[in-house]
């Protein structure tokens, strides 16, 4: 069988060249690929003929690792699936396990989860905004984004002691209750942060150069988007309502008021605008959640060793910062998952890159990649 496989490898790995065409390797060490993504780009002058993403430079086989860890231990590894939005992946895994084992987290824990996940969304979108602008050539927004992100990190560190890999959202609740001064500090941050979004928009949104680089570039039509499994803000930029928070509500998202941000053009600028608006919505969700926060237990009553029922399986989806985050778990009656699969948004979003960039200029790869909010560890896992 291996012979068969090797022949297939060879068949796919060769390029046919036309006149004046040449290959450029963008990455795995390149300033614009956000880590170790490698793109093999076939160019004719400046024009792209074909883009082939080569994945796997950051493949740590987290799914295999999870098969050999107990359920709570897996949570520490989910931090590393998407380290820019670690809370979301924590939540995705915790929710899946809870559904698998029929555990109901108490209400305070659920509200806390919502606050932290939405704060994480802000942090992630801030980093994305900076990186996106940096890809296009404006370096200053990156530092503005990081400046605000630091304050979110401070909130996280105050609560759970870590700044990047939190291990905060646990099966059946959260790790630890918030400090008494968390709520005022969080409110103060939101008050500080809200006007900043307008400032970023002043800096970028209608800047003619930014518009030139993003309007009409990398258009994902709704049909292509759905067919290729694009999800999250990237698909919402094409005018498809696909927010898991609305469609398959988890936590208490059905109890708060928020709008699903949708733009219709499907180009880089729409995706940018969707995320900018999402930041505003997140601020509003956090404010409402802070209002609804009531004292109570933060962890459900659980057996000391968590075991999944035999032959149980669950596919649970959440809306992470990058889009649909699915966790598929198969339980076999032991304390370790038989199978854990993370369905990550970046993986599917990257798939359409080739279609979007054909015929465009090499600089457009940067705009399109940036607008996807690509996190390479999430692609490679």
């Amino acid at each position, binding site marked *: 069988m291996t012979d068969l496989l090797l022949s297939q490898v060879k068949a796919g790995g060769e390029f046919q060249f036309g006149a004046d065409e040449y290959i450029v390797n963008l990455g795995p060490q390149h300033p614009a690929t956000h880590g170790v993504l490698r793109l093999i780009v076939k160019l004719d002058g400046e024009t792209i003929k074909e883009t082939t993403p080569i994945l796997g430079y950051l493949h740590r086989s987290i799914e295999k690792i999870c098969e050999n860890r107990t359920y*709570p231990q897996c949570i520490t590894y989910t931090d590393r699936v998407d380290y820019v939005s670690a809370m979301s992946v924590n939540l995705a895994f915790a929710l899946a396990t809870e559904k698998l084992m029929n555990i109901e987290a108490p209400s305070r824990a659920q509200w806390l989860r919502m606050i932290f996940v939405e704060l994480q969304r802000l942090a992630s979108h801030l980093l994305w905004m900076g990186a996106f602008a940096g890809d296009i050539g404006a370096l200053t927004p990156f530092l503005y984004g990081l*400046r605000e992100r630091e304050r979110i990190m401070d909130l996280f*560190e105050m609560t759970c002691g870590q700044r990047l890999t939190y291990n905060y959202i646990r099966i059946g609740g959260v*790790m*630890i209750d918030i400090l008494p001064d968390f709520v005022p500090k969080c409110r103060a941050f939101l008050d500080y942060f809200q006007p900043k979004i307008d400032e970023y928009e*002043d800096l970028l949104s*209608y*800047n*003619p*150069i930014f518009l030139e680089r993003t309007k009409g570039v990398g258009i994902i039509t709704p049909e292509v988007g759905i067919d290729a499994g694009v999800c999250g803000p990237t698909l919402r930029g094409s005018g498809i309502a696909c927010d898991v928070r609305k469609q398959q509500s988890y936590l208490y998202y059905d109890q708060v008021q928020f709008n699903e941000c949708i733009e219709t053009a499907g180009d880089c600028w729409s995706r940018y605008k969707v995320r900018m608006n999402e930041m505003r919505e997140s601020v509003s969700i956090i404010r409402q959640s802070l209002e609804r926060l009531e004292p109570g237990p933060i962890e459900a009553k659980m057996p000391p060793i968590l075991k999944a029922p035999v032959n149980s399986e669950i596919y649970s989806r959440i809306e992470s910062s990058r889009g649909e985050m699915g966790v598929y778990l198969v339980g076999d009656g032991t304390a370790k998952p038989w199978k854990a699969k993370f369905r990550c948004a970046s993986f599917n979003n990257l798939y359409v890159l080739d279609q979007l960039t054909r015929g465009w200029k090499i600089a457009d790869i940067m705009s399109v990649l940036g607008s996807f909010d690509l996190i390479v560890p999430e692609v490679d896992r």
Partner: protein
Amino acid sequence: MGMIKYFTNIVSGFWNLMVGLSVTIGYFFKGTTTVQYPEERLPLPARSRSMIKLIYDGEKDQFNCVACLMCMKACPNNCIKLEGVRQADGKRRMTTFKLDFSTCIFCGYCVEACGFDALTFVSEEYENAVYKRGSLLQDEQAMKWIRPIQPANQEVLK
């Protein structure tokens, strides 16, 4: 019409460029937010998971650890090595404790699992970089930590 649009585009584009420029130049005259690290240090929150320490009881002249191995089992990466013996008074005591910080991911499960107040996170010590990888394998002497008489903050992560 096309002519008018051409010029209004130029003018509005120019205006938007100036709006952007006003933001950055505005910040030019505002203060900075950075901290000059080695000289200025921000205090870390009390819950900060910066370094794991073994609590040493100064009065009894022994570690709190009783070698129950709960931390070892909780560790997702198996980076704790722990041995204990039953002493003359019938109580178990830890003899060797090794924590490999090169594989530790500071998840906090060991500290949470400890039921004898023997492991803790300290927030004071966070410059953990070393020159040799071997120095990250710390034993009980390197991890020895005596709790201050008055705890700095009651809200320690535990």
